[in-house]
Every structure is written in C-alpha cells, then in structure tokens.
C-alpha cells in the first residue's frame, strides 16, 4: 500500500492512475477490452442491478470477451433502472436503460460483439465540469 506523504506523491499517484486508466482505454489490450459499468446505487439495486452485473460478469467470460465489469453510483436515470454504460475500445461510452438479462444478452450479442446499437439507449443529457468552460 502506497502512503501518500507529500503533494508530489499525490501528483505522481494521480499521473500513474491516469495512465493506468488510459492504458486500459488505449493500451495493448485496448483493441479488445470492453468496459461495462453498472449503476449500483440503492435505486439501481432495487430494480435488479446486482443480477445484471452478475450476468455480465458470467456471460462475458463464458463468451470469451475481454472485459472489465465495475459498479458505479447513480447515473440519474432512475426511471430507466437498471442502467449500464458500455465503452467499446476507441469509442464514446453508451448508456443503456431498462437492462434485464434479456436486454443484457442482446447488448452483448449485438453491441459488444458487432458494434450494432440496440434500442434502450439513454442519451447523455448533461454537461460535465470538464467541458464546461464558461
């Protein structure tokens, strides 16, 4: 475990972690690596996000797809829970809503395998602090 003892330590750590994230997105295995984030706040879990997350972990492995599946907080689209975000290599992330096992299967077969979008996309409808430069 790294102890962060000074400002320089923190800055190095951040740089390293960012490279790690970048590597995941642009590095060696990036050609293949798929990232799936499942919104797992109380609202998501109440509508079945845990099952969906397990489905992705199990099925992506069974179907030999190189992927990381992680949990995240509420994306804000509570009306469409469970929601997930899928990021294919070198592409903008896409959010899908109302994801049950059937939808998850469709997402794996069509979008993750072939890049073919499926119904249920939720367009990102907010600005982030990174692109807000007023």
């Amino acid at each position, binding site marked *: 475990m790294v102890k962060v003892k000074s400002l320089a330590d923190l800055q190095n750590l951040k740089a390293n972690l960012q490279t790690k994230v970048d590597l995941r997105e642009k590095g060696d295995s990036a050609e293949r690596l798929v990232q799936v984030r499942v919104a797992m706040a109380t609202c998501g879990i109440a509508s079945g996000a845990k099952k969906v997350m397990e489905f992705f972990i199990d099925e992506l492995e069974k179907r030999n797809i190189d992927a990381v599946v992680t949990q995240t907080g509420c994306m804000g689209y509570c009306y469409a829970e469970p929601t997930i975000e899928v990021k294919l290599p070198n592409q903008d992330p896409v959010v899908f809503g109302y994801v049950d096992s059937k939808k998850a299967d469709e997402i794996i077969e069509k979008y993750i395998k072939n890049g073919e979008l499926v*119904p249920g996309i939720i367009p990102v409808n907010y600005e982030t602090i990174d692109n807000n430069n007023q």
Partner: protein
Amino acid sequence: MHLLVCGGTGCRASASDAIVGKLQKELDEKNLQDEVQVVMTGCFGFCEKGPIVKVLPDNTFYVQVKPDDAKVIVEEHVIKGRKVEKLLYKDPADQKEISDSKHMGFYKKQLRIALRNCGVINPENIEEAIARDAYAALAKVLTEMTPQQAIQEMIDSGLRGRGGGGFPTGMKWKIASQNHADQKYVVCNADEGDPGAFMDRSILEGDPHSVIEAMAINGYCIGATKGLVYIRAEYPLAIERLKIAINQVREYGLLGDDILGTGFSFDIQLRYGAGAFVCGEETALIHSMEGERGEPTFKPPFPAESGYLGKPTNVNNVETYANIPVIYLKGANWFNKIGTAKSKGTKVFALAGKINNVGLIEVPMGTTLREVIYEIGGGIKDGKKFKAVQTGGPSGGCLTEKHLDTPIDYDNLIASGSMMGSGGMIVMDEDDCMVSVARFYLDFTVEESCGKCAPCRIGNKRLHEQLDIICKGKGTLADMDKLRNLSHVIKDTSLCGLGQTSPNPVLSTLDNFYDEYLEHVHDKKCRAGVCKDLMQYIIDTEPCVGCTACARVCPVGAISGERKGPHTIDQTICIKCGACMDKCKFNAISIH
C-alpha cells in the same frame, strides 16, 4: 451507420413510432437495412424540440422530425451524405443551423458539479476517484493556502448551503474559525429526511470521496481535527460505501496524522441517526450525536459557538460538501459565474411524482421549472395536465402554472411562496387533490414533530384535523379561516424550523388553489376524484339493463332494483369501494 430515434415519452407522443417505421421502410426499399440500423433511444432531454433523430457516427442532430421526413433523411443524408438543413436545430441567437450535437452543449440543461463522479467512478475504489482529481483540492489548500485564504475563496465563490437554509458557506466557516477552543468539530449532515428526496444518498453512494475531502478542507479552514458524519441508519449502502472510502483514504494517508507532510491532522467518524426528520435540524442533530434526545434547542448559541460537546462545530450538508473540491480546483471565479446573482452554482433535485423521467438531475441555479419539467423531466405522465410542483418538501410550498418560467433560485422560490429546501421536487397533475396534498404533508409533520413545543405538537394536529374535515366534505368557510389563522400562529411561535415551516403546504395551497378548497367546502366536490367521501357512484338508468351483477357484488347491499329494471345506489349505505363499477359490463356506473 445508426439512426437514433428518440423513443422517450415526450417524442413518442409526437409520432416517433411512425418515424421509425417510415425510416425502416425507406431503408428496406433502398436495400440499406444491413448497413444502417434504426434504433429507439430514451429521452434526449430536449423534448420541446422533439421528435429528435440523431445520426451516428457524425452526430447530426435533427429536431421536430415528422414521419414524412424519413424519405429526405434517407435519400439526402444516408445516401448522398448531405445534411438535411431544414431539420437542423437553429441557434435562437443568430438563426444559424447547428449541425452536430457536439456543438450544442447548451441544449443540455444539466451541469454536473456535485454529481461529477456519480455514475462515473467505482465508489469503492479510491484509485478511480484519485484519477479524477479527488484529494487534489485538499492538497492544493493544504500546501498553497492559509486557512484565511481558503475561507476567503469559499466566500468569493458564493456557495450557499444546500441543506435547505441557503446560508453562505464561507461565512459560516469564517465564524467557526474565529471561535477559539481546544477542540472543534466538522459535521456532515446526511440525515436527509424529506419525503421523496434522495440527493444526498446518491452522492454518498456514488462519490463518498468528494464529501470526505471537503470535510478535511473544512477542518483545515476552521481549525478542527475531527469530523463526524451524521447519517441515518436507513441508508445502509451509503454507510457501507462511506466506511470503505474512509478506510481507503486512511490507508493512503490522506486522512489521519500529518496529511501530506503539512502537519495538519484530520479524521472522520460516523454517527448513526434513527431516521427522525427533526434530527436533520442542526441543534437536534448535535444532541442526538451526544446521546441526548433528538430535540432542537434555541439558537443562539449557534453550533459555530457551542455545538457538539459544547465545542465550536461547523455543520454542512452532503451536497454542499460535494461542491467544494471543485471550487478550489477551478476557482471561486469559475463557480460564481454559474447561476444567478445571489445563488451560485447548481442544485441537485430528486425529480419525482407524475413526471416521465423520474430521476436525479443537477441544473444551474436560474434554470426555470418549465425547463426542468418539460425538457429534462420529459413532461407529465400519460399526457395529463400539469397542476403543481412541491419543492422544499414538508417545509415548502407548491408552485403552479404561473411560476413555470420563474428562474429557480433561493430567493425566487421564497418570493413564490415555496422554498429551495434540500431538493425534493414532486410533480402533481390534474388527478391530484391539493387539499389532500396539504393533508399528506401535515400527516408527515404530525408524525415527525418532536413534541417539545405546544404550537407544533398540538397546532399541527389541529391543522391536520381541519384538513381532514374538509376532505370529508364536512368543512365550512369558518374552517378555512381557522386554517389560515392557526397556520400563522404555529409559524410564529414554534421553536425550530420544523414547526416554523410546517404550515407552509397549507398556506401555499390555500393561496394557489383556493377554488379547490371552496369546492370541497361549498359544493362538496373533489375535482380530482381523490377525496372518497365526496365521490358518488351513480348508476345511469339508460345503459343499465338490470342484470343485477352490481347488486350481487356490493358488499354492503347498497344497490337495489328489479331484475331487468334500472338499479340505484343508496348513497347513505355505499362505502365507495368501486366493486360495482368494475363489475358492470354495460358501463352504466360512473363516479361523480
């Protein structure tokens, strides 16, 4: 290539199904169905300009598309690669077409500051948080700023408390910093008790580090080494994530002794609340943490002078804290350009009720209710008519049609007879009875009053009774006067914010929906059909064929009539269960 057609409820009402059908047909005819996929999406948050069609990968954004436009989109855009100009969005400023959604950030009404990492990072992995700048603000403040400078930056940012009161955060810190003591405390208020509110829970579940970091900054500024999070035990997931986060930060040495070698030490502990609304009030909260009864006490002394264990204590809300790291990273001058003159930054709202896109939203202060409801919220469910929106929970009031274009900020909401509150926003439609809504909130306050002072304990109970009498159709005009007078007495004589604001839902519905009260009192009618006692089930003798089905199903024998002759309901016996109406195959029974 993909053609994304908005299938959100707003656009769907205006023909997105037909658009999908026509696009598909055009593509099939031109044998393009394998190259181009038509996909329905959720709401784009731009319903006013719907239906929306977006083309990928070039991000072209078509607005107000009609089914007949499918042909030009396919022939021009898909085949010839030329954008269809008449369908592009025109910048209202200069009437120029904007061709792709990357350049129309302004259509996105939301700006995520407090929610910047919610739904982005894994809240149980500190590395993802640090990669997105967590603790960079703490490092900056500790190494580059004196506490006075950091407080000044907070004052300059204009940030006001998001827990309801809207007190300037920088000023609060300044006062706490000026009170000297051997020990001071920083407290995060995570009690969140308003019905329908879940902003704070979502922040703690999605990005606990933002709150931990800000509390440490707060500690540095006021000279406190101990932080406490008061969180309701009903939030198990938020508690778990917070615990995991605190342990990870400690392991990284960003909480604990001598943080970043600066000599500043700070640590955080959790305190659990049992879920009493009044314990969100800061003095009650402090007493609850001390193991005393969760009852408010008179201010002054304010917590900044004498708070937890009698020591100077700074209490801020979860969302207030979540904003703070960004303010230090981007600067007070970045933050204070967002929002309105006296309310800076954004506000997170939990959008609920009769609205299509129920969810968590964050908008710059000054956004109008219309934008929130009709664009981000996707409009009213089932195409019903908007009636009111309750902000500020049980302490707030309702806003109506005439407030739709008021920019939302602390001062405008107060001027409109409501308040910001913590951010619950409950939308009501024509099927909601406003007298019943007022009664619902009074139900809540009667439950939650701590009972310490008579006006709140007894007065609210009486208010509730009066409302109940009106809902039952037994009210008189004098009852309405009583409601108003009693409300003012309770407001003026209660000790804490709970009692001082609890009559607000009554006063604001009286102000905005006087007619509806009058109908209940005078005509014994509830136009929304909510108040059961004012409804009558009536059999229309025309369509009634005398099948006796209703008479047989009625549990109290209220229906009489000859076989094959018209039936009638004895209103003095009927208990309004509705069974007869469901049973009648000839639609002869209706509610009046």
